[in-house]
Each structure stands twice: as C-alpha cells, then as structure tokens.
C-alpha cells in the first residue's frame, strides 16, 4: 500500500471516528410527516433541533442511537433562530461534546450528521466556507456567529450537528437558514436560546411597536434644521398601547438618530433593540412638524403572537 493510500485510510478512519463520537449524541426526531429530522442531545434530557422541522406539538418521538424510540415533549420553540427544545427521559445517551465555533476557520474539514432510521448516524463531508461575527438571519433571530460550509444538508439533516474532525459538535445545521452554503446555528446561540426557552418558554425580543421607512430630507429643510444626516426614518404606523405610543411618537415623525447614532435604515433600529435592550430606554432625535424634537422610548418585549 502506498503512503498516500495509508494516509487516506487514516483520514477515512478519523472521519468515521468523529462520526461515531458525535453520532452517539445524535438522535432522529419524528415531529413531522414522512421523513424524520435530526436532533442533538445537548444537555441531559434535552434534545435541540431546528424549529422548522417540528410540524406538530404532540406525539413527537425521538429515536436514540441504540434504536429505542422514546416520547419527547416540546419544551419551547423559537422561530427567529430556528431552534426547538425537546425533553426526553434523562440518562439515556451521552451528552454532546461541544467545540468552540470561534475556532473554526475557512478550510477546516467538517461533517454534517443525521440520524433518520435504525441504520445509524449518517454523514456528509465538506469544509468550512465562511465565518464571521454576529448576524441577523432572515427569520429575524440574532445568530452569535456566522458559520457556513459547503456541506450538503440532505433531507433530514436539518437539526443535525456540525462536527469537526475530532468529533466535537459546533452547532446545529439549519436547512431553513441555508442558501447556497449550509448555515450552522453556533453552540453559543443554541445555549442562549435554550436557556431562555427553558426559563420562560420564549425568547425575549426588544420591541417599540412603530413601523418606519427611510426618507430623505430636502436640502433646504436639512440646512434650516442643522441636520448632519441626509435622511432618517419616517414613522408610518404606531401600534396602540405600544412603547412608541406611550412615548408620544406620532405618524409622520422622522427619527434622525437613536442614542446619538444617525439612522437611515430600519435595520439600525432593529439592531438597537437587540440583545438585552428590553427594559432600557432609547433616546430618539426626531423631526416633527418641521422642528427638532426628541423622545425617550422604554423598550418593551415583543408580544408573543408576533415573535
């Protein structure tokens, strides 16, 4: 056997070892018609999967690596980050060995795992393609790190772990959040959302209850008002009883800055409502009826039906 063949066989063995290790904490989730999806035994008695693969609230079951199928209860779901929490009997299988997603770099070899039936853990192989900092996914949730790979997220692989060559689990792969590249919800986001879902059953998100869109100032008004920025955000709707209404914001007000930072894109206001903004106050500089004004809005919690 040539040196190349030996090295290849060794790599092949290492990948299979990584699948075996991470696969011991990877389960099949039966929460939708037909094809199963995948979940990770994240903490003892807690399986994390992707929210989009859970299509019923009752009658969910989980198939363990040994082949036993056990009942699972839906303990919480967060559409924004595409995560769902299932409770299963404790002590039935090993808890996932986690890696640090911040250590992943483009080019690192990774595996996507799934379990769909009694044939064992399944694997897809590829490389990390892109990494980055915090981002907001199209479902609206904050994801703590960008982790994308060229892995194929086959049917049923959603909710399965992203595994490095040492068998450590770095997060959950989401079919729903993936586009041309596979997207992984990193371990830090899984922990954060899991804590919130277990503690209060939902993920708290900042909310002021105003709809707005970008608007440009005419140069004369801009000069007269001494505005540094060329545009702002005009409020087009204020929900009754919302924090924006309580702060006296009116339709037609133009938000020029939030906490002193100029804004001309609604995403900048959304950003100001991220993290632990609930309960804090935002200072808004406004143009109202052709005059400068300001308002302090106490950030509330997004109502449950709009999460």
């Amino acid at each position, binding site marked *: 056997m040539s040196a*190349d063949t030996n090295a290849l066989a060794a790599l092949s063995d290492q*990948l*299979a070892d990584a699948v075996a290790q991470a696969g011991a904490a990877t389960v099949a989730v039966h929460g939708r018609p037909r*094809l199963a999806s995948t979940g990770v035994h994240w903490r003892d008695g807690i399986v994390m999967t992707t929210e989009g693969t859970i299509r019923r609230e009752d009658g969910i079951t989980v198939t363990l690596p040994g082949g036993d199928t056990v009942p699972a209860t839906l303990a919480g779901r967060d559409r924004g980050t595409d995560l769902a929490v299932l409770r299963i009997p404790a002590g039935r299988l090993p808890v996932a060995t986690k890696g640090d997603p911040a250590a992943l770099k483009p080019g690192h070899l990774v595996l996507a795992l799934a379990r769909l039936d009694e044939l064992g*853990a399944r694997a897809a*192989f590829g490389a990390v393609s892109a990494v980055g900092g915090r981002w907001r996914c199209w479902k609206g949730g904050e994801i703590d790190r960008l982790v994308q790979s060229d892995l194929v997220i086959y049917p049923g692989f959603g909710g399965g772990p992203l595994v490095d060559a040492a068998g450590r689990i770095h997060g959950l792969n989401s079919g729903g959040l993936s586009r041309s590249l596979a997207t992984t919800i990193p371990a830090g986001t899984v922990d954060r959302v899991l804590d919130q879902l277990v503690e209060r059953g939902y993920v708290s998100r900042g909310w002021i209850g105003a709809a707005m869109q970008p608007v440009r100032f005419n140069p004369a008004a801009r000069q007269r008002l001494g505005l540094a920025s060329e545009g702002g955000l005009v409020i087009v709707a204020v929900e009754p009883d919302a924090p924006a209404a309580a702060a006296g914001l009116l339709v037609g007000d133009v938000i020029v800055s939030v906490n002193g930072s100029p804004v001309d894109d609604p995403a900048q206001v959304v950003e100001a409502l991220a993290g632990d903004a609930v309960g804090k106050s935002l200072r808004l500089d406004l143009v109202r009826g052709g005059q400068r004004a300001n308002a302090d809005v106490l950030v509330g919690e997004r109502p449950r039906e709009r999460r």
Partner: protein
Amino acid sequence: MISLAAAAERLRASVVVVRAGADGRAGGGAGIAWRAGGVVVTSAHVVDARDVTVVLPDGGAVPGEVVRRDPRRDLALVLAPRAALPPVRHADPARLRPGSLLFAVGHPLGVVDAVTTGVLQATGPLPPGLGVPGMPGDLAWLQADLRLAPGNSGGPVADAEGRVVGVSAMVVAGLGLAVPAPDVEAFVAGEAPPRSASGRTPRRGRRPAYI
C-alpha cells in the same frame, strides 16, 4: 499532501465506457472489469440492447454482449472477450463506517473517467420517507454523500484503499446510491443476492412481510 491520485489511477485502468448498440453511438454509462477475461459489470439502465460497445481506458473500442440483466437490482453483465483489463478488487461496504471516505470513477455528463469524492452515509434500505414511487423499498443501497451524475451509472464507488464497494446506480434526493458489492458479486456469480450481506432484514411493521 494526501492524494487520491494513486488509488484513482489504479481504478481507472479497470473502468470502461459502455455504449448501447454495436455502433457505439447511443448514450451510455460506465462499466467495471469485475473479473478477468472481459467480464464487465454495468447498470441495467445503461444497456437496453444485447449488443454494446465497450470503450477501453486506452481509447480502443471492442464489442460486447449483454449476457445477464437485472432491472430490479439495476445491474447488467457484459462479456467483452477482447477487453483485457485488470479486474478490480472489491469489498463489502458493511465493513465501512459512516463518514468513511469514498470516491467514484465515471463519466458524468460525458467527462471520461472523472473522479468525485465523498463519504459513506449508510448501507441499507433508504430511510422511510425518502423512497421514490415504484422503487422496491427493501433493496439495500450504498448511500453516499458523493456527487454522481448521468454517466456515472455502472461505474465504481471505492473506499480509501481503492476497493470497489458499490456500483453507481442513481441519485435520490441528492444522495448517491450504489449497488453494494456483495449484491454485484452474487449477480455476476449468477446467485440470488445475499439476504443481508450489506443490509438489514426488514423490521416488523415497517414494510409488508412477503410470505
């Protein structure tokens, strides 16, 4: 630098192009020199006529004859006595684990002897909910995260040591499916496929039990 080149080179010496028809102008796929003496295995869906043309690795074309065909298992046996090729080594994919490296040699969309790589997902029947209407549910497949395309059919899927573990057959939901080597060996030997050489026995309640 780890490379597949040596293993791929060895395997390519045993892979042919199989074209339906004596004139070799019809569409085709790949074939594998399974035994010495011009015993070539390909996919049943590649050859629907008795006479075929076998294009050797050196570019020469020799005539072949389809002597056995199993559309259900999607295998065909071609005899091409003038194809003096080294037969492949083969192995049971049941000895591999999920995540084991695999590579395929074939002619995807006409690119002769292209090598693609991937890993093993499972060996056995497709998971419930992933089958294709009309496809027998109890067939065992080598299921791989491996890029296959038309033209790969009938070509080998090999392990990291270059042993053929399956014959490329089709793609379902993006998954590359190959006929496990023990089923191919049984077909070539003219035997019924081994009951669970590479798969599991059907579980109660999942599929009808034929009695």
